[in-house]
């Protein structure tokens, strides 16, 4: 063990699978003077890596997780530590069979091959010790395997050492960190201090504790999942290796069973959530096993004994097979179930690689190392970005409630539209009580209670009849209502008023503001005061980082408005790129301002009664903003529209929001305006207009050209991603984003089915559509288009398929439905000439 240096380029805290992977990939990317420390011994420091069950199921509904897992498996295979054994998710109920079909769908969308739905008899052939009468079917993935993550980590760490890039210190405990001017400076340990440019926290369940030392927050909680080993059993008596039979996930009971040498390991995510505080963890010396192996609580496993006995009576019911080992093992849970990766917003140079499971460890190590060393990762990590959290989401209470709620959904059937039940009502609009009176059905987005639709609009159902495109099947009508479509139609007929309070808003102010924003935005920012610019924000590779609106309010004042969901990540992106000399300063106004949108053919009629300002088309052009007086309020009105109608976004200070709401309604009611929820604003309106959404259509993997959002000219000013963007403009795009319409919804038994997003788009013969970069076509967004009378799907199609009128198929829950390419690129389906917006 070498002595620790006193300076380093990066100190990696943690020698579990993630820390080791980070060390290797940073070294591979050319970083030297790396120091890796762990307070435990090597090779097994006693974290979750040391006892984790180490199996990998590659199919995930999340594209990001599937990509990270795919990459991890490739790395494990390269290291020679991957043993393929196959895996079967079994269903005990018919509802679960539908979910398994969804797994097939996701497998196809993300390109996981060798998957199939199997019958109980087929499961029995693969897993002879199962009682197949207990199940109704299964989802078999041949490529499931187990890995020796300890060995993988050791090999990766040793490679970094061999490269001369890494010094390793075991039994070194971090006692504190020094931050200077908002940047990490020194790591203090019980073996000396290290001045360093970067700190990587890869400490699993201890990560929040470490982050706190630097004044940052990593919102995860240690939580238990139970594991028991029984054996040896005659069935596995001749076992030559660790595992020779497929792993079984008993989804409906939230359990798994797998061979483990001569015995059987039974794991459970079914018990009550048992959460710990990071300060509760024992030290390495105190723990009888390891600090992440807690004493087993048999009461919590009672039901699981019976359920595993039901499923595998041959082994579990054998009286001679004894229980040798049982623990409450610790793992990390986060409030939204995604890892926590990236530079902490509070402290520059402090990087988090936390809440990572074995199955994505190496992939995340590579991605975050790329992010650190190259500025960008190949796999888009926007859903795992640490910057995504708002303050309230980092509180103990929020973490506790959401992780507890999420824990028992580990193998659950989670509807894509499903809402959280816990910790609601944290952020409410100033007109919340008005919305309640209108029967708002509140859905939550980053803590904000936003009306998804209003039950007071129920009468519209009669008015619009079948045009509301009702959904007979239970699954896609869950977390949905035809009232959404009725609101959409009423808005397009008359006017709709939308609560947009959840916008993240921040000003960039100062003599350097223009220059700073020119660097960040693709579009020209040197525009007249009062202009509103809708612009993509690119990463260095020319892929999307965000898309948002910037208003020029003054020569040196710009207001950035972005969707709440990615607001905090966007804010960090901008904040990180403010000039060092302070000539431009970013101020967060999210909680200072509230926004209400009003759109529809009658919007001008309504607004003109509220203000004496000239709101005619010539007086107040599209894409401009100005302050107008409405009653006693000074309102910043911005004439843009994400729903594709005439109208404005209206901004007032938060405390005046209720008054603005009331003013609007007073004026709007006689014109038949209706309250309109996010069901319209986020989906139906924009799908008809071909408007893209970040995180759905727009990701780092897709270029501006592919997204069909390339304006005719490129500004001469330099901006992040310009070089790549210019290259993309010169090339033929490998894929183009299109809008497709579903032609026939008839599914099995004649029931009409409606896709919800994530489904693969395939050729008429059922073969996958793969572009020249190896990317598969899948539905990025799906929803009703009531004004065009069609169910709409957005998808990137390989260029040769991106032809209006092209006939393809969408695969949904095991059946294919014919779809037609309706538009290619950003061409709107509804009101293609934008007459409404420009009226």
């Amino acid at each position, binding site marked *: 063990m070498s002595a620790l240096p006193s300076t380093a380029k990066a100190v990696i805290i943690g020698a579990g699978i993630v820390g080791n992977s980070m060390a290797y990939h940073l070294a591979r990317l050319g970083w030297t003077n790396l120091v890796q420390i762990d307070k435990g011994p090597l090779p097994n420091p006693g974290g979750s890596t040391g006892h984790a069950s180490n199996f990998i199921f590659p199919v995930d509904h999340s594209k990001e997780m599937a990509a990270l897992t795919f990459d991890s498996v490739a790395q494990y295979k390269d290291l020679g530590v991957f043993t393929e054994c196959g895996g079967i998710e079994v269903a005990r109920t018919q509802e679960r069979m539908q979910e398994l079909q969804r797994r097939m769908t996701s497998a196809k969308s993300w390109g996981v091959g060798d998957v199939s739905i199997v019958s109980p008899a087929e499961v029995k052939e693969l897993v002879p010790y199962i009682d197949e009468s207990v199940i109704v079917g299964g989802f078999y993935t041949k490529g499931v395997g187990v890995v020796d993550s300890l060995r993988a980590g050791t090999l990766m760490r040793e490679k970094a050492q061999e490269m001369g890039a890494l010094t390793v210190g075991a039994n070194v405990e971090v006692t504190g960190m020094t931050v200077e001017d908002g940047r990490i400076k020194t790591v203090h340990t019980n073996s000396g201090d290290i001045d360093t440019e970067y700190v990587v926290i890869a400490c699993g369940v201890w990560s929040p504790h470490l982050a706190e030392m630097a004044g940052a927050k990593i919102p995860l909680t240690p939580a238990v999942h139970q594991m028991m080993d*029984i054996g040896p059993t005659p069935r596995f008596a001749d076992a030559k290796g660790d595992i020779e039979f497929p792993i079984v996930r008993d989804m409906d009971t939230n359990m798994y069973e797998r061979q483990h040498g001569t015995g059987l390991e039974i794991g459970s995510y079914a018990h009550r959530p048992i959460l710990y505080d990071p300060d*509760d963890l*024992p030290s*390495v*010396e*105190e*723990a*009888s*096993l390891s600090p992440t192996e*807690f*004493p*087993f609580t*048999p009461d919590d496993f*009672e039901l699981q*004994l*019976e359920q*595993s*006995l039901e499923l595998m009576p041959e082994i*579990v*019911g*054998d*009286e*001679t*097979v*004894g*229980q*040798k080992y049982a623990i409450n093992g610790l793992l990390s849970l986060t409030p939204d179930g995604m890892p926590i990766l990236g530079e902490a917003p509070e402290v520059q140079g402090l990087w988090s690689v936390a809440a990572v499971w074995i199955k994505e460890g190496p992939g995340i190590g590579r991605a975050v190392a790329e992010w650190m060393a190259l500025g960008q990762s190949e796999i888009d990590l926007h859903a795992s970005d640490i910057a995504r959290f708002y303050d309230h989401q980092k509180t103990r209470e929020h973490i506790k409630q959401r992780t507890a709620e999420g824990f028992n959904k580990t193998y659950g059937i989670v509807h894509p539209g499903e809402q959280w039940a816990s910790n609601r009502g944290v952020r409410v609009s100033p007109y919340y009580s008005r919305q309640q009176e209108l029967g708002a059905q509140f859905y939550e987005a980053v803590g904000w209670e936003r009306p998804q639709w209003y039950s007071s609009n129920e009468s519209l159902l009669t008015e619009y009849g079948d045009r509301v495109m009702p959904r007979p099947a239970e699954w896609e009508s869950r977390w949905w209502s035809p009232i959404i479509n009725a609101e959409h139609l009423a808005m397009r007929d008359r006017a709709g008023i939308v609560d947009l309070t959840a916008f993240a808003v921040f000003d960039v102010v100062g003599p350097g503001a223009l220059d700073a924003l020119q660097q960040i935005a693709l579009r020209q920012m040197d525009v007249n005061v009062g202009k509103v610019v809708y612009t993509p924000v690119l990463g260095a590779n020319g892929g999307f980082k965000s898309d948002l609106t910037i208003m020029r309010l003054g020569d040196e004042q710009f207001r950035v408005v972005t969707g709440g969901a990615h607001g905090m990540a966007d804010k960090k992106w901008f904040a990180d790129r403010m000039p060092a000399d302070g000539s431009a300063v970013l101020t967060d106004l999210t909680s200072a301002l509230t926004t209400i949108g009003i759109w529809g053919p009658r919007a001008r009629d309504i607004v003109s009664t509220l203000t004496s300002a000239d709101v005619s088309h010539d007086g107040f052009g599209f894409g401009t903003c100005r302050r107008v007086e409405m009653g006693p309020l000074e309102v910043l009105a911005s004439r843009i529209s994400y729903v594709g109608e005439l109208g404005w976004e209206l901004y007032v200070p938060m405390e005046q929001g209720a008054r603005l709401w009331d003013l609007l309604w007073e004026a709007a009611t006689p014109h038949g305006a209706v309250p309109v929820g996010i069901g319209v604003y986020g989906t139906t309106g924009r799908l008809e207009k071909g408007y893209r959404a970040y995180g759905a259509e727009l990701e780092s993997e897709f270029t501006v050209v592919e997204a069909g959002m390339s304006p005719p000219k490129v500004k001469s000013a330099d901006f992040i991603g310009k070089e790549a963007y210019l290259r993309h403009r010169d090339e033929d795009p490998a894929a183009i984003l299109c809008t497709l319409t579903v032609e026939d919804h008839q599914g099995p038994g004649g029931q009409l089915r409606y896709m919800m997003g994530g489904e693969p788009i395939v050729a008429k013969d059922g073969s996958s559509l793969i572009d020249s970069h190896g990317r598969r076509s899948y539905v990025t967004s799906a929803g009703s288009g009531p004004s065009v009378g069609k169910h709409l799907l957005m998808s990137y199609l390989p260029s040769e398929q991106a032809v209006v009128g092209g006939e393809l198929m969408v695969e949904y829950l095991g059946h294919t439905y014919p779809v037609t390419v309706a538009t290619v690129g950003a061409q709107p389906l509804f009101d293609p000439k934008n007459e409404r917006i420009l009226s």
Partner: protein
Amino acid sequence: MDILVCVKRVPMSGGRFVLTEDGRDIETKRLGFTISPHEECAVEEAVRLVEANGGTVTVLALGVSESAEQIREQMAIGADRGIVLETDGAEWDPQATADAIASAVQRDETFFDLVMFGNESADSSGYQVGIRVAHQLGLPVVAGLKSVSVTDGVVRAERPAGTGKEVFEVPLPAVVTVREGLNLPRYPSVPGRIRAKKKPIVVHEVSRPPARLNKVRLELPADQGKRVEILGHGVEAAPEVVGMFRKIGVIS
């Protein structure tokens, strides 16, 4: 034959103990619990004897109500019934413990042919509860046993003594205290655990008489102040080691 095995709920020791703030107890909030290794062997032996001869195994614990957890574990390997003499959590000295157990035995509807104890508990290691109970019940007692067998109402018991062993033959009813090494206890099976849930455990509250051996506080033994001298790494250290052997006189 009907056998009673007396056990005690003790924390699982790991690497190092942590004491509570007032220094009176071990901090157990992060620890699991078990019974002493000697007692595990006692229960295993009792289960084997009953498997061979018929009868019942009762497991008794004096301690907090959670002691039932430990009794369930023993039921999972074959014990039939349980008795908890429930205390409020304060420590009981060996005399008080023995008194309570003897009373419970006398009160119990089952007549026990054999009453078994671990030779000493893992934590307080008094070496005396079993013997005291025997005196109270007027029964013969053999202690520290590594081998026990029963034939025709006689216990044949053995234990090591020097290089040989001591052999006892004692008529039932009797009390024995046993040591780990008596047998290799089985692990519970899942069906065993499931059955255990339905077996009866009866709870009697007991109140502690004044202690005559009264624990005042605990203390971690002082660091022996040893600074380990590293003789070397890997095979290169071998000559150094032999040098040390010479120095301490283990080789000439």
